[in-house]
């Protein structure tokens, strides 16, 4: 029984981080219909900000988190202005964004590898290797802090979307872009801000990732499929769905890791992706496709 609790606790702690990684991706897809394959590579960018902050200046990654978020959000604004804004009018927009973001991912990876080499890194503040014990269940402090910070950020995002005027505009644009425009929403501005928030969340997630996992520039490929499976299971564009999916799959993955070995735990995400697409393509909280 203690083993089961242990597995669930570890799964939930990681689930929070995955949820944060996925929610930015989901927000960007919901508002902009951009399948952002570059999202994980930008998370990597945030991880490097936190890593160098710690290595060079001894800054705690949790303190570096807002800095990483702001730097990445600014990157997001730049990408949006340079690339996505002008392509938004194209008829093949959604398809094109897959190639565009793939290219961005390659460029970010190449840039990071050139600058920082492909060495494995990990930020190691004291708590990253420490743990709490409750009875015989141990909770690694690093994962616990990362999970809690993630949850707090997601809650803040949810409150912002639910109650702020701009949040209304974002939700409206997600549900019906044309209608939002007719209600007086400047949808281009909504696109820009959502993109910046989404990429900013990637930066924040990166700061957390930097002490939870060891990382190197090309590691983002592993996360592409993991994050896509969260977004698909949750229902494309549903942030709540993505968060629920992240927790469910992380706990499942922890069980798979426990019973079949750690190597197999990632398989959980890939299998989930297949099964969801076969059985319930609209995901947990998604709309049924209109063409069905």
């Amino acid at each position, binding site marked *: 029984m203690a083993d089961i609790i242990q597995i669930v606790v570890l799964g939930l702690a990681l689930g929070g981080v995955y949820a944060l990684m996925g929610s930015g991706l989901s927000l960007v897809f919901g508002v902009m219909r951009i399948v952002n394959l570059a999202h994980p590579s930008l998370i990597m960018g945030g991880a490097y900000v936190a890593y160098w902050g710690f290595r060079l200046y001894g800054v705690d990654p949790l303190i570096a988190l807002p800095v990483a978020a702001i730097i990445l959000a600014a990157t997001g604004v730049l990408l949006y202005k340079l690339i996505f804004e002008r392509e938004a*009018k194209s*008829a093949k927009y959604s398809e094109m964004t897959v190639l565009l973001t793939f290219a961005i991912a390659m460029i970010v990876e190449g840039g990071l590898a050139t600058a920082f080499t492909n060495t494995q890194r990990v930020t190691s503040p004291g708590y990253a290797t420490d743990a709490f014990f409750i009875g015989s269940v141990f909770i690694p402090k690093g994962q616990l802090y990362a999970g809690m910070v993630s949850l707090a950020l997601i809650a803040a995002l949810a409150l912002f979307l639910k109650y702020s*005027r701009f949040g*209304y*505009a974002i*939700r*409206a644009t997600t*549900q*019906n872009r*044309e*209608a*939002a*425009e*007719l*209600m*007086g*929403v*400047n949808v281009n501005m909504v696109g820009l801000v959502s993109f910046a928030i989404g990429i900013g969340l990637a930066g924040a997630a990166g700061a957390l990732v930097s002490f939870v996992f060891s990382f190197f520039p090309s590691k983002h490929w592993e996360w592409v499929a993991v994050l896509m499976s969260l977004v698909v299971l949750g229902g494309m564009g549903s942030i709540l769905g993505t968060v629920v999916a992240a927790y469910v799959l992380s706990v499942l993955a922890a069980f798979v890791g426990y019973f079949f070995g750690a190597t197999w735990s990632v398989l959980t995400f890939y299998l989930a992706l297949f099964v969801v697409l076969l059985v319930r393509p609209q995901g947990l909280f998604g709309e049924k496709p209109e063409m069905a």
Partner: protein
Amino acid sequence: MSELLEVKDIVAGYGDGPAILNGASLTVQPGKVHCIIGPNGAGKSTLLKAICGMLPVRSGNVRFKGESLAGLRPDQILQKGICFVPQERALFPKMTVRENLRMGGFSLKDQSDLERRVDEIEEQFPILKERRDQHAGTMSGGQQQTLAMARTMILRPDIVMLDEPSLGLAPKIVQQVFDIMKVMADTGITILIVEQNALLGLRNADWGLVLDLGRSLFEGPANDVLEDDRIQELYLGGKKVA
């Protein structure tokens, strides 16, 4: 007569495609119900989309209260006082009825007044009050149309443009839609409506405009347009309809 809105010789189309409107013109007088009729593909919906800024006007001009609307975004044109309800009704399916009404007032400068205005609309349309916490996407077609039309009144606009509000509704419900339109007109809102059913549209309007192949054929008092021989030929299949 002073015109509220004047559309002159506009050319417009979708993307890089051919022009759908080839020099359409229209004058809108304050306080009246204007009905645009014409066969399929005449450019009726396109005309409304060009006026509200959803489609760029390639040439010609649109003037509202004497001021050119050229180059303005839809949200800016809305601020000036022109609302548009497209055929698809532009609702937010996963927001509640009340939230949809609030979205109607999104562009209000003074947001503190919004809740009171939403309350007013709910008083005026009891069905919306009854369904306030229901997701808009789960309502019937007629109720959705009521919501879409009532929602425009939150802004107290000068002009509301309705694109085939009766589309897909049962005949009994269609009359309700025109009743709501009357309520709107009675509050002083000028109406511009596109209607596939010319007879029905003109009977509920003061002024009629006939559009064909992207051009304005002729316009006049709704009754005169209804009786006009050219209409009988072009649109009603040459048969005189009482």
